[in-house]
């Protein structure tokens, strides 16, 4: 129910963005001064993704279903180990990630968590679900400072 509402409002924001020229493509980008309405529309597009990511992060079944993902098969959700996204430290990526024995991005780490502790199905690294999860995690940590590579 909640995710359906979000999708409706996301469509509305997208339409608004089109009207304001947000989606007019690279040919028009930065050719004119931005209006307050445009900036608000940009923010709205971002915050809608944050909300979808929040729902995914907290295991909302409707949002998972609508995006065609299964982030856990055992009832787990990302937020069970990471309330407020704590200890995800997105500001440290990319970095060497011990669990993978590899140089990894935040998206790699999200997928590792989905597969291992959450026992879910890995998602496409460029999928809408991944972008929404990334948006929520970054937004939640937005006041932390960048520390790429820090373990």
């Amino acid at each position: 129910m909640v995710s359906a509402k979000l999708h409706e409002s996301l469509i509305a924001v997208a339409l608004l963005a089109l009207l304001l020229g947000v989606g007019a493509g690279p040919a028009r980008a930065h050719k004119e001064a931005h209006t307050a309405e445009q900036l608000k529309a940009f923010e709205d597009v971002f915050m809608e993704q944050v909300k979808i990511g929040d729902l995914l992060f907290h295991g909302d079944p409707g949002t998972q279903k609508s995006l065609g993902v299964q982030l856990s098969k055992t009832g787990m959700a990302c937020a069970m180990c990471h309330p407020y996204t704590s200890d995800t430290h997105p500001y440290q990526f990319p970095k060497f990630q011990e669990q993978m024995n590899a140089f990894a991005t935040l998206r790699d780490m999200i997928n590792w968590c989905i597969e291992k502790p959450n026992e879910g199905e890995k998602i496409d690294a460029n999928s809408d679900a991944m972008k929404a999860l990334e948006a929520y995690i970054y937004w939640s940590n937005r006041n932390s400072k960048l520390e790429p590579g820090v373990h």
Partner: protein
Amino acid sequence: MSDREHLRREMDRVLRAPGERPDGSISLTRRTFLHKSLLQGAAGAAAYGLFPTLSMIDLAFAQGGQGFRFAWVSDTHLYPKNLNTRFVEKATRAFKDVQAMSPPPDFLIFGGDLGQLGDPVELQLGADLLQEIKVKKVFIPGEHDWYLDMGATWNRMFGKAPWTFDHKGVRIVGLDTVSHAEDFWTSRKMTAKERMGHMATLDGTLGGAWAAVGAEQLKWLNTALNDWPKDKPVLVFSHNPLYEYYPPWNFWVRDWREVNETLKPFANVTNIHGHVHQPLYNEIGKLRSIGMLATSWPWPYAPEGVPVLTRAMIRVDPGEPFDGVGWGLLTTSANARTDAEYKMWRKEVFATTQVDSGTGDNDNQILSPRIADRI
């Protein structure tokens, strides 16, 4: 200054007056040593490089008491077996460890959050697993046990809290700190499952500051302690800590001021609590407070408010289900000491360097409350 900072300063002002601290006859030490099952060869754990350990906190009780041991298990967060067996395996391991103790503990305290979503199937599964334990068992509820049917199944199966009994010179109290959430569900026409879902989300918004002792129970606590000598030890079990640590996750009780007023006359008060899924130690006024492990999964330390007296748990491996979890063994000895042991299934319990500390990145971890559940 943030609201939380105001609160924290108030708590210091109210609870940490000059010279105000737990009785000097109570001393605290910690030690970590290998559990005997390691010496006997714990093949599964060794394969992961993890070892069962006991870590111990020593508290001294007033002279005249007799020694005794009891075990604490909490936060098993069981799902129905057909959905998730991982938490069942860990709870089973803890219960077997407790039962294997020789000599056996005097009793087991189960500190709440037996089930994940208050489902009678989950609570029955927990009751079945607890059959492993043959010694006396006492129970206090967690919020995960409560908000599907407002405690009806829990109370029927495990009895109502609060309760009190005396054991070898110690007055022991079990509190209910979970049943006092303000009603956010009726006006939103929520189903019982929806209400439970919000309450089961640690960083949820709608549950608000649900953790409390409540006026009625405070009155009961006053009565329960009324005839107890002020210099004799009191042990208080609660699901939530009885001081302010991190209110957004209910790592507190909202009426900590009133709780402190009630406990203040007593020189030797120790509170053992669950909910936080992490080692914690604090002294506030005359109250000593010890946070215990979960068997299910470790919570990260809150981004702020970790008591300065707490030695942080080591960072754990999220890929290893048995890492960072366990149970607790508490021993009060006749020579006026009580040991509280973190029985974590790994070699090192506490961090020795910042990079390995569970609070290691708190100097650069500025988090925001979630937004998608504000309906």
